[in-house]
C-alpha cells in the first residue's frame, strides 16, 4: 500500500503502530482491531497492527522486522503502563536498528481496559491517546543515554537482622559497606527476643555471632549511634551525610570492659532501660546488653549528673584505665560516597495505649508482647522468670491477638507475625509458669514452613484457644471469682455467647507499624510510602525490594510486616540487586534532561533559582544560562518557567507535548 509522504519538517516520518490484546486484558474491553484501523488512517502511519501479546518475543520481533521491511523510523505501542514495559519496547526499537527514543508507549490497560466498563467509550479513549502518541512521536529525536560509573560501595540504613544480613552478603562478595544504626548497638528487634518461632531456637544464639562478625568485618564500616541526615545524588553516585551522636566515649580507646558502669556513682539504675522495655532500670553509663555490637558503652546525657551540669565525682572516668571517657565529645559528621543504598529501617510496635479498652497503662498486669519477650528471656529483667509486677507468678494468662491489627479503628492490615509469636509466648509462658494460657484470636494465621505444625503442638500442649476479638479487659468484677482479677470480655464466636474470663495476666499481641519518622526517611531517600506508611516497592511482585528511586532498595519490615525468614530472604535479595549494580560498573542515565538554546536565552536568570538541584548556572561571559547535564534530573520545572522558550527537555519537548495535546483532542 502506498502512503502519502509525511514529514516533520526535517525528514520523512514513517510510523509503526502496534496495539496489544494482552490476552483478554485489553482485547476484552477495547476493540483493538478498530483502534488499529483508525490509527492506520493517521498521517505518517505506515504500519498499524494488533497482536495478542506485544511483549512476547514474537511481538517484539514483529517490530524489529517491520522496521527493516517498511523502513519505519518511529514506533508506537499501545499496551500496558510504560512503567512496566517501556524498556522492553525501547530495546525492541533499538534492535530494529533505530534509536530507542524514536519510541512512545500508550497506556491502554491500566489507564484503559482495566478501569472502564463501557467498551465503546474505552475504545474511543484508546483511539484518542493512540493518536496523541502518533502525533508526538513525529517530533521525537535520537537521544543517547549517558553512562556514569558506579561508586563501589553500599550504604545500609538500619542494623536490624535485615541490615545485618544484607551487609554480610555484600561483604562476602568483597563489597565495601557502610552500616548505619541509630541505636548504640545493632541487632534491632530480633535482639530482644528469647526464642524464635516455630523452631524455638534461641534468638541470641543465631543473631549474636552474625553481629560479632559485622563488628569485625574489614569490609564493613559499622557506625552505630549514628543517623543518615542527608542524601544527595543519583543511582551509582550518592553522597550521604552521617551524624554521629556523642557517646561521650572515645570509641577507639574503649574496650568494653564495663569498669565504668560498675563504678558509676549510681549504684542502682536510675533510668528506664529501653532494651528491657522499661521493665528495669539502667545507669546513665550503660551498654544496651552484654552482647552489644559494637561493644562500646554509652553515656546518656539526660541521666548523667555531670552532663546535666550537676556535681559528680566522675568515678566512671577515674575507673577507666584507658581514659576513654570524654565528657566534651560533640556530635560529628562523615560524608560518604556510595553507589547504592539499602534501607532497612524496620518497624515499631503498635502503641497498646491506643486501645484504651484493653487497659494497657491502666492495669499493672496488662503487658505488651515485647515486654513478655523480655520476661521470658534469661538475660531479661527477671532472669527469665515470668512474674507479675508484684512478684506473683500468674496462674492464668490471656494472650489477646490482633491488638492494633485488622482493626478499622487503628490499623487495617494483618501484622503477619503476631499469631506465631503469640503461640511462641504461650508455649514459653506455660513452660515457665505452668499457667493456664488462653489465646483470643480472630483467625489463626500460621502460613509458613512448620507453622501450622507448631500451632498443633500448642493445641496438644493444652493451651486454650477462644475465637473472638476481645471486647475489653476490665478490673470491675461482677462475681466473687472475678475479684482481684483482670476480666477478659469476649464473644466466643465458636460457642456463640459472651464470656468473661478472669485472669492474672494479660498479654497484648501488638501489631507492627511503620516507624514514626518513616516519612522523613522516605523524603530523604526520595522513595514512596503506601497508604499505611510502609515503604512502597516498585512492583508488588516483580520488584518487591526496588523503589521509585533507582539505586535505593528496601528490605525487611520497613516495607511491610514480615517474619525473620522473609526478612532475611528479602535482605539477601536487596544485597543481590545492589551487587548487580556495583558489578555492572556503570549506570545509564535517562536522557530526559534539559538544555538551553543559547540563541534564544537572554540570561534573564528566571530558571536558575527554580532548579532544585542547582544544575543551572549563568555563563556571565556569554550572558546565558547553562544546564549541567550531570546534575539535571529532568523534572522540567525550568522548561515550563522559561519565558523565552529557550529551554528544551528531551522526550518532553514543547513541540512533542503540544502535538500530543492537540492530537489527543483531535479525536472527537
Amino acid at each position, binding site marked *: 500500500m502506498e502512503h502519502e509522504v509525511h514529514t516533520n519538517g526535517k525528514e520523512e516520518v514513517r510510523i509503526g503502530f502496534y496495539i496489544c490484546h494482552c490476552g483478554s486484558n485489553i482485547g476484552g474491553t477495547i476493540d483493538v482491531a478498530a483502534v488499529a484501523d483508525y490509527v492506520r488512517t493517521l498521517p505518517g502511519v505506515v504500519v498499524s497492527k494488533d497482536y495478542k501479546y506485544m511483549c512476547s518475543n514474537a511481538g517484539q520481533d514483529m517490530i524489529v522486522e517491520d522496521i527493516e521491511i517498511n523502513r519505519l523510523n518511529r514506533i508506537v505501542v499501545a499496551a500496558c503502563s510504560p512503567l512496566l514495559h517501556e524498556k522492553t519496547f525501547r530495546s525492541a526499537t533499538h534492535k530494529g536498528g533505530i534509536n530507542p527514543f524514536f519510541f512512545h508507549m500508550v497506556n491502554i490497560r491500566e489507564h484503559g481496559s482495566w478501569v472502564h466498563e463501557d467498551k465503546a467509550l474505552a475504545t474511543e479513549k484508546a483511539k484518542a491517546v493512540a493518536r496523541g502518541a502518533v502525533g508526538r512521536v513525529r517530533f521525537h529525536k535520537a537521544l543517547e543515554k549517558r553512562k556514569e560509573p558506579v561508586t563501589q560501595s553500599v550504604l545500609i540504613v538500619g542494623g536490624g537482622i535485615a541490615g545485618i544480613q544484607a551487609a554480610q552478603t555484600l561483604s562476602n562478595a568483597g563489597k565495601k559497606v557502610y552500616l548505619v544504626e541509630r541505636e548504640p548497638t545493632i541487632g534491632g528487634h530480633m535482639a530482644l527476643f528469647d526464642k524464635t518461632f516455630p523452631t524455638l531456637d534461641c534468638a541470641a544464639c543465631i543473631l549474636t555471632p552474625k553481629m560479632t562478625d559485622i563488628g569485625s568485618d574489614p569490609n564493613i564500616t559499622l557506625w552505630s549511634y549514628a543517623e543518615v541526615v542527608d542524601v544527595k545524588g543519583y543511582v551509582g553516585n550518592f553522597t550521604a551525610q552521617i551524624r554521629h551522636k556523642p557517646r561521650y566515649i572515645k570509641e577507639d580507646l574503649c574496650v568494653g570492659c564495663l569498669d565504668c558502669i560498675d563504678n558509676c556513682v549510681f549504684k542502682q539504675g536510675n533510668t528506664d532501660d529501653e532494651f528491657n522495655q522499661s521493665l528495669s532500670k539502667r545507669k546513665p553509663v550503660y551498654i544496651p546488653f552484654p552482647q552489644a555490637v559494637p561493644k562500646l558503652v554509652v553515656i546518656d546525657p539526660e541521666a548523667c549528673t555531670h552532663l546535666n551540669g550537676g556535681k559528680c565525682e566522675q568515678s566512671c572516668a577515674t575507673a577507666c584505665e584507658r581514659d576513654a571517657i570524654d565528657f566534651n565529645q560533640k556530635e560529628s559528621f562523615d560524608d560518604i560516597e556510595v553507589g547504592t543504598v539499602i534501607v532497612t529501617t524496620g518497624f515499631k510496635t503498635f502503641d497498646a495505649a491506643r*486501645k*484504651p*479498652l484493653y*487497659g494497657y497503662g491502666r492495669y499493672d498486669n496488662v503487658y505488651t508482647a515485647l515486654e513478655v519477650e523480655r520476661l521470658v528471656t534469661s538475660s531479661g529483667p527477671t532472669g527469665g522468670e515470668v512474674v507479675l509486677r508484684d512478684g506473683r507468678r500468674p496462674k492464668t494468662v490471656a494472650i489477646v491477638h490482633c491488638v492494633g491489627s485488622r482493626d478499622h479503628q487503628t490499623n487495617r492490615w494483618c501484622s503477619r507475625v503476631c499469631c506465631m509469636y503469640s503461640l511462641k509466648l504461650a508455649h514459653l509462658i506455660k513452660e515457665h509458669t505452668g499457667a493456664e494460657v488462653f489465646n483470643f484470636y480472630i483467625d489463626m494465621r500460621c502460613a509458613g514452613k512448620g507453622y501450622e505444625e507448631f500451632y498443633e503442638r500448642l493445641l496438644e500442649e493444652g493451651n486454650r484457644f477462644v475465637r473472638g476479638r476481645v471486647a475489653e479487659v*476490665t478490673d*470491675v468484677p461482677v462475681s466473687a471469682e472475678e475479684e482481684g482479677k483482670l476480666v477478659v470480655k469476649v464473644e466466643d464466636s465458636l460457642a456463640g455467647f459472651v464470656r468473661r474470663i478472669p485472669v492474672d495476666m494479660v498479654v497484648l499481641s501488638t501489631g507492627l507499624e511503620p516507624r514514626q519518622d518513616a516519612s522523613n526517611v522516605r523524603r530523604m531517600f526520595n522513595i514512596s510510602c503506601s497508604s499505611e506508611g510502609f515503604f512502597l516497592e516498585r512492583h508488588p511482585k516483580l520488584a518487591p525490594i526496588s523503589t521509585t528511586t533507582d539505586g535505593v532498595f528496601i528490605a525487611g519490615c520497613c516495607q511491610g510486616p514480615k517474619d525473620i525468614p522473609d526478612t532475611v530472604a528479602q535482605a539477601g535479595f536487596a544485597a543481590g540487586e545492589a551487587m548487580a549494580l556495583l558489578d555492572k560498573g556503570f549506570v545509564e542515565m535517562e536522557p530526559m534532561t534539559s538544555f538551553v538554546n543559547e540563541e534564544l536565552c537572554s540570561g534573564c536568570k528566571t530558571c536558575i533559582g527554580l532548579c532544585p538541584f542547582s544544575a543551572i548556572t549563568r555563563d556571565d561571559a556569554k550572558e546565558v544560562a547553562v544546564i549541567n547535564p550531570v546534575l539535571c534530573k529532568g523534572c522540567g520545572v525550568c522548561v515550563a518557567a522559561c519565558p523565552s522558550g529557550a529551554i528544551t527537555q528531551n522526550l518532553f519537548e514543547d513541540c512533542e507535548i503540544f502535538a500530543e495535546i492537540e492530537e489527543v483532542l483531535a479525536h472527537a
Partner: protein
Amino acid sequence: MKYAYYPGCSLKASGKAFEESLLAVCSALEIELAELDDWNCCGATAYMAVDETKGAALASRNLALAEQTGLDMAVPCAGCYGVLLKAQAMQRKYPRLADQVSVGLKAGGLTYGGRVRVKHPLEILAMDFGTKAFRSRVKVPLKGLRVACYYGCRLVRPESPFDDSHDPVTMDNLLKSVGARIVDYTLKSKCCGGSLTGTIPEVGQNLCYQLLKEAQRREADVVATACPLCQFNLECYQKDIARKYTDLKPIPVVYFTQLLGASLGLDPVALGFPRLIVPIEPILRERGIMAKAGTEPAKAGV
C-alpha cells in the same frame, strides 16, 4: 458566643434540671443559646430503627432549621446528639439517601446543605469556651468532691468528633479544672440500659447497678452525667435496684452542668437541685462546698 439551641424532648420533661442548669451556666458565661423555632423530635433511637430514611429526614429538619441561623448547633441530649450526627453521616455517605431527605425537606420548604456543626455542651464548654477560661470564672471550687464522670454510650459512640469513644476525658478535665477529684471510672462509656430499665428491668437495672456499684467501689460522692436518660435511669431506679442488690447505697446522680453551676456560685434552685431525688446538698455541705444547714443558700452562693 452564640449557638442555635436544640433542647430535644427530654430537656423539656424528665431532664428539666439539665436544661435549667445548662442555661444558667451558659448565661453566667455569656454564651447565648437561642432556641430553634419550631424544632421537632429527633426521632430518637426508635424511628431510625423502623425507617432509616424517614428517621434521617425527621432529624434533618432540625439540621435545616439550624442551618438557616448560620450558627453551630448546641445539642445537650446525648440521644438527640447521636441521632443528628448519624443523620449527617448517613447523608454524607449515601448520596441517594441525601437526595430522598432533601425531597422530604423541600416539601416542607426547607433545604439542608450539610454545613451545620452539631455540638454537645461538653464540647462547647471545654473546647469553644475553654477549660482554662472556665477555671478563671470559678467562685466555689469543688474541692474534695469525688466525682465519677459518666458519659454513657450515645455521646461518644460510634465516633466522637471531640473525644475518644472508649476513654473520653472531656468531662473529667472540665470538672477537674473546677477543683473536683475525678475517680478512676472505667465504665464511663458503658451503657446504662437505656429504655431496658422499663421494658426488661432485670437486664436494664442490672446494668445500672453495675455502674452505680463501681462508682461506690471507687468511693465516688456523686455521679456526673451528660445525658438525660442516663441521669434518669441511674437516679430514679436507685430504690428499685437497691431492693434487689442490697449492697448498693444511695448516691446522687447529677448533670455535669449542675456541678459546673455550683462551682460558678449559681443559685441551687436555678441549677435544678430541688428536682434531684437523691439530694446532693448533704455531700456538698460535708465537703464544705456548700454552707452548713441554716445558712440561706442563695446568699451563701452555694
